């Protein structure tokens, strides 16, 4: 290992510690780390900007940007508020049924949108329904944060780590959905059952309060039906284009950008409105992160680690998958899963490439995705959606402590991640 490589590892480790501990803002840590990589000569403009292997993966950045714009328009339609109120009324305002339907809606929405956006849309309407119902909203909000993390695991666009994995592994929307969605459907059903047990004290029905929920007027929240119709058509076309990748030959990032353009055109909204939901901080964070990890790739550090991992794994891919599944879940419960997956993806790619196409090796991608995504449920800070829900709850006078969330999170993450093990074994190693 050269002096330059040692310095690069130190910069990377230092930035990682700062991101994990939040001693400085994560964007400052990632961009500062990237700047130091440039200063020590670990990367340069060509390496950082024009190679997805050693620099910024623009497929990921533009896919995120496109989806953020699509969501920015869609959320103006009131669709999610409508669905949540409709579900509460459909459940006849019976508390557990309300929670179950809200959990399913959140999970499905999370599979198509990013998790944070989904909980931002669902949490306020949940507070409204719970206030009318006269029940404590905390269990409902916790369940929704977890449902968003579970549902987001199902597709390529559901969770940022999946976008990184798909880009690095060259996986299509359909491949991701075919390998992740089946187990997520099962996990969602199990999760609904877990909610019945975990939050059993929260389901107290009151006919008088139920009538107040039934009096809510869900149709009124859709103020612009024309925008809703147009937005849904564009979203359907975008999802279809993701799924028909083998026919239309458009990369997910291109589909998302074209979809965003179409959404802007049909909505007729101002740039301030449709750009309001673009999280520029997140995009810059990704760029800084990619430059840092890319610098390690550029200097051959990741390749050496990959070779070490490959020789350690040998052809014991099941053992590697188990380690990756639980190790990823453990780490993702503690630190942000985005930098974790950005770092692990080149390593897993090294093992998969070295295997010569062994299906057992390829399944490591699913172990990484399931572990990193589902592990986020373990603690209150394990996923961005959890942090956002805690914030919304606190602002509305329902403080959820770290441990209150975590005591449920550990059970849910433990059960869901463990159930992935028989799935991986039966489907890829038996």
């Amino acid at each position, binding site marked *: 290992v050269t002096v330059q490589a040692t310095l690069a590892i130190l910069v990377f480790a230092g930035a990682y510690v700062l991101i994990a501990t939040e001693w400085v803002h994560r964007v400052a840590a990632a961009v500062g780390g990237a700047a130091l990589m440039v200063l020590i000569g670990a990367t340069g403009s060509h390496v950082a900007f024009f190679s997805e292997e050693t620099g910024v993966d623009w497929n990921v950045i533009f896919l995120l940007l496109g989806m953020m714009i699509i969501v920015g328009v869609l959320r103006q339609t*009131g669709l999610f*508020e409508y669905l949540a*109120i409709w579900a509460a009324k459909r459940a006849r305002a019976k508390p557990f049924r309300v929670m179950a339907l809200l959990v399913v809606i959140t999970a499905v929405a999370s599979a198509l949108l990013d998790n944070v956006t989904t909980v931002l*849309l669902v*949490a*306020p*309407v949940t*507070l*409204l329904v719970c*206030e*009318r119902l006269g029940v404590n909203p905390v269990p409902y909000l916790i369940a929704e944060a977890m449902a968003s993390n579970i549902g987001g695991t199902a597709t390529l666009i559901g969770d940022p780590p999946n976008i990184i994995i798909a880009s690095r592994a060259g996986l299509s929307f359909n491949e991701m959905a075919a390998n992740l969605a089946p187990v997520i459907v099962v996990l969602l059903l199990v999760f609904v059952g877990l909610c019945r047990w975990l939050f059993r004290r929260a389901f107290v029905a009151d006919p008088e309060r139920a009538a*107040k929920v039934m*009096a*809510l*007027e*869900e149709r*009124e*929240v859709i*103020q612009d039906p024309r925008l809703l119709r147009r937005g849904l058509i564009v979203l359907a076309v975008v999802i279809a284009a993701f799924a028909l990748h083998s026919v239309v030959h458009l990369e997910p990032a291109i589909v998302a950008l074209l979809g965003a353009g179409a959404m802007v055109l049909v909505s007729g909204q101002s740039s301030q409105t449709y750009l309001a939901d673009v999280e520029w901080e997140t995009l810059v964070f990704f760029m800084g992160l990619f430059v840092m990890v890319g610098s390690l790739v550029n200097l051959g550090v990741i390749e050496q680690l990959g070779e070490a991992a490959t020789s350690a794994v040998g052809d014991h891919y099941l053992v590697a998958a188990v380690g990756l599944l639980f190790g990823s879940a453990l780490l993702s419960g503690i630190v942000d899963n985005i930098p974790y997956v950005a770092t692990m993806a080149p390593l897993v790619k090294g093992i998969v490439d070295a295997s010569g196409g062994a299906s057992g090796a390829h399944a490591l991608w699913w172990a990484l995705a399931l572990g990193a995504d589902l592990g986020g449920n373990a603690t209150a800070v394990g996923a961005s959606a959890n942090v956002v829900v805690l914030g*919304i709850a606190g*602002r*509305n*006078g329902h403080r959820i402590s770290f441990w209150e969330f975590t005591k449920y999170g550990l059970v849910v993450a433990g059960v869901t991640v463990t159930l992935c093990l028989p799935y991986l074994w039966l489907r890829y190693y038996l």
Partner: protein
Amino acid sequence: MLARDLAEQVPVVRRTHNALEVARLIASLRLAGVVVADGRGEPVALLQGSQVLRIVVPRYVREDPRLAHAYDEAGADELCAGLGRRTVGDLLDDDEVTPRELPQVQPDDTLVEIASVMVREGSSLVVVRDDDGASSGVVTLPRVMAAVLRAAGREDERVAHTLAHDLADLDSPHAPIETPDGEDDA
């Protein structure tokens, strides 16, 4: 005109007053807001009507305004009735309601200086206070507007009436109002 010329005595409320009382005062006198005074009658805060209104609308509706459309008439009325469970003190302690500092001007400040404070603070009321901290009343937006019209030579009878009469002098059963139990914790 200077701030001392425009200063008037306005109805004041105390921390112990019910928020509905404030709403009644604002509605009956068509005020933009009310002054909250401490036990000595010194102004400690200004409560604007829109700030009182914020309490009626739950935070989650403010974060997602589309939800306001979901309430039927009975639900909306029930929400508004919730204001009766809050006191002026509750409103002042709410970090979303309390103005960070009491907008104030000096007695010899000009119309432009008063207007500049109102614009900067987004307030339709400012307190007139001298260097010793003694308050000589409040300047309200209608009085500032009336002074602007007079300065522009467009004064009429109603404008002159606005400048000549204090709000507290109005023939109203609500002005000024006293704390119900004489207790004050401002």
